[in-house]
């Protein structure tokens, strides 16, 4: 348009932009709400299952492979443990590892990204070299190597999965910061002698925040799959603690007779991944309409 360089001096209308952005926000809100509901349902199941069903996930509750019936909703596994209870309890493991790993990578990755993006120069080059080094290995390979060295406890899993997610975080946050640091309000702050950490917190963070939320949800979706892959390979949380990846691995031999055994944890995995993705997508749509 011709008027890029000229701006009118009438007060910007209050409802104009709001009206325009209503549609995507609504759509994104629905997405976010559905995503949150899915995840809440999964979490709720994993914690309320003790009230619903009288079994513990590790006790032998009946014969092996009872099939679907009233006492064992999803039957029992090869050792006679209640499969539904195990499926629900496994959600605690998978979901909590995903949340904590994503949060940890958010904190560390964002700090790296903010520092590199705001400071630039040598610090930026150094940090990004480290990040690129991490990025150049497939994350599953890195995780495998790390888990083989350290024992696969829940804590190490969180740390390892966080570390492999950090590079993406740092990259995304840095890219946005590089863009923002040339904006006039950041320059104004620098001219006024505002110190770099204050600029980072006051000016960069609020403008990067929506992006961080998108990345957080996306990371959680990836981490949940990664954790299951590790469990499937026997490098996740160790038995008898149930986890979805491990359950898929253990049940695949009985797939022909009892297809619901692998399908249960696979479906739960899919649902939780979709839940996180919906939230991530929702945030990114609403971000576009806001910024």
């Amino acid at each position, binding site marked *: *348009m*011709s*008027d*890029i*360089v*000229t*701006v*009118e*001096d*009438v*007060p*910007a209308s*209050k409802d104009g*932009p709001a009206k325009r952005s209503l549609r995507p926000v609504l759509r994104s809100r629905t997405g976010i709400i559905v995503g949150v509901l899915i995840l809440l349902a999964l979490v709720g199941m994993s914690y309320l299952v003790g009230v619903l069903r009288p079994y513990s996930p590790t006790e032998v509750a009946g014969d092996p492979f009872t099939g679907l019936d009233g006492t064992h909703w999803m039957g029992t596994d090869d050792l006679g443990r209640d499969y539904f209870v195990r499926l629900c309890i496994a959600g605690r493991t998978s979901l909590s590892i995903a949340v904590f790993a994503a949060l940890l990578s958010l904190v560390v990755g964002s700090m790296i990204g903010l520092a590199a993006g705001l400071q630039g120069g040598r610090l930026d080059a150094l940090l990004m070299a480290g990040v690129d080094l991490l990025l150049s290995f497939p994350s599953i390979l890195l995780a495998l190597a790390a888990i083989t060295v350290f024992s696969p406890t829940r804590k190490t899993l969180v740390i390892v999965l966080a570390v492999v997610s950090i590079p993406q975080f740092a990259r995304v946050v840095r890219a946005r910061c590089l863009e923002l640091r040339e*904006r*006039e*309000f950041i*320059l*104004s*702050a*620098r*001219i*006024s*002698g*505002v*110190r770099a950490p*204050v600029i980072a917190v*006051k*000016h960069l963070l*609020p*403008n990067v925040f929506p992006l961080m939320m998108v990345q957080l949800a996306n990371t959680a979706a990836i981490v949940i799959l990664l954790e299951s892959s590790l469990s499937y390979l026997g490098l996740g949380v160790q038995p008898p603690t149930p986890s979805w990846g491990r359950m898929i691995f253990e049940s695949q031999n009985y797939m022909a007779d009892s297809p619901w055994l692998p399908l249960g944890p696979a479906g739960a995995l899919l649902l939780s991944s979709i839940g996180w993705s919906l939230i991530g997508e929702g945030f990114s749509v609403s971000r576009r309409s806001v*910024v």
Partner: protein
Amino acid sequence: MKGRPVADTADPAAPDGADGDPSGPVLAIRNLTIGYGTGAPSVRGVDLSVRSGEIVGLIGESGSGKSSVALGCLGLLPKAAEVTADELTICGTDVLAADERTLTRMRGDSVAMVFQDAMGALDPSMRIGNQIAEVVTRHRGVKRAEARAVVRELLDKVGVPEPDRRARQYPHQLSGGLRQRAAVALALAGDPALLLADEPTTALDVTVQAGILELFRTVRDEFGVGIVLISHDIGVIAQTADRVAVMLDGEIVEHGGVEEVLLEPKTEYTRMLLRSVPHLDRPRDEPESRPVAGKPLYVVDDVSRTYRSRGRLIHAVQGVSLDVREGEVLGVVGESGSGKSTLAKMLVHLERPDSGRLTMSEPGHRAGGSGGGRAGRLRRRVQMVFQHPAGSLNPRLRVGTSVREPLAASDTGAKAAAERVREVLREVGLPEDSAARLPDEFSGGQKQRIAIARAIVGDPRVVVLDEPTSALDVSVQAQVLDLLSKIQRAENLTYVFISHDLAVVRAISDRVAVMYAGRLVELADAASLFEAPAHWYTRELLAAMPSPDPRDRPERPERRPRAGQAESGQAESGQGEEAAAPAGCAFASRCPAAEDNCRTVRPEPVELEPGRVVACHHPAGMEGR
């Protein structure tokens, strides 16, 4: 709407573009209304007609609907737009009734458009010649082999030097001016009868703009096309248009011959618009007794800054020395790439000079090499206002928080800070409750007022204003300039006012520095610089400024457009990116007074007379000295 007699487009093979009745209008609009859903239509009852061989200027501020009219003529408005008109015809084609195929044929055959951004109009991955040839073969029914000759002729006619070589180049290899000339050639390739030009020179430097405006006059005379020239710049219209229409809020409020409208405006709006335009020959309206000869406050001593970009050295600023005096307004002018913005960034310590010193004349305040805390304190003594009001405020912070920031950094008490913020917001003329609102709720001009409030809140000594009004409409610009002058007097501030617009600089400055290719070429008090420029570049700049008075236009345009030599030369040498810095004067290739020594010996800035520094071997009007 097939079968309608008026829906027939002109014969594409028509020999000379004079479609239909030569005296009939090529564009006829009666009672055009464009609306979007509910609310008042954005264009209301517009009547406009353009005959071949005339330029009709369309003036208006942003949001007045002038671009919508142009897009409506082409049938290019978004689907949501409701367009109605008693008549909207181009060369007899009813645009509103035409189907998509007819419209497509009409665009290019009968009407073409030139945009502000030539880079967007040209395909970056295609050679210039091929792009034009494509249109020529499609619309003129010429064979590919013959098309090359037509392309060559077109490029030559629009003043592209060495048309054969340029035709083989890609758009990015051309300078801005040549690119716009190529875009004009592309628009003329289909031999249209009507040319719509939407702010075609807004993105160009003033010396380049002069050439393009001349090109439009030539296109009118030689190709006989009717041109609608849309611009917010009254000078541009005054120097090119035969007739003028003034738009306000979607309506044409005044319409007539260029001299009639611009010299004897009938409506209050046009009068206001004309009053707002800063004039080159009109200095700041104040007694000349201002203490211009204040003490040097901020001394820039032999400062240079070089960037490295893709293996090339770019000498953005080279050996600039000047002093900013207490209480003055020092204007800095130059074209894009002249180094004025880099100089501004060094003045506020966003960039460090590679060599040279910046000294604030107060004990203990030296810019270079001071520690963090000291640099912070020093920084607050020099503040800056940027060009783009939209970017200068954090969209997520309330206005009060943004304005208070310089105070927070200097440990002012919360209560005193809040009081001071209210005070400066009042001073820049914003409503009481502004502090609690978000930047989105303010218009461009108001945002710029907030940016000014923010700059002065911490009692700085010097405020650097980097094109503070370039993004604003002319009436808003006048208000902001007034405000800046008022504040300067009230707070006893010193300004460094950077702009490419000489008339704006004239309106506010006491002294003016002219930069070219990273160097200072002239520094003098405003009156003598504008009345008797000594450097040839300054003279060229002043001559290129389109005057808002239509009587100032060149009597009879030359038959052929002046070749875009200046523009091509600029891409190679004038942008401060001398690959291997030539030994002589950077302006020598464009200078009318250049002699042999200009190409071999660089002229150093010399104080020719008290208070007047010129870097030229043969300064104009100073031969006797």
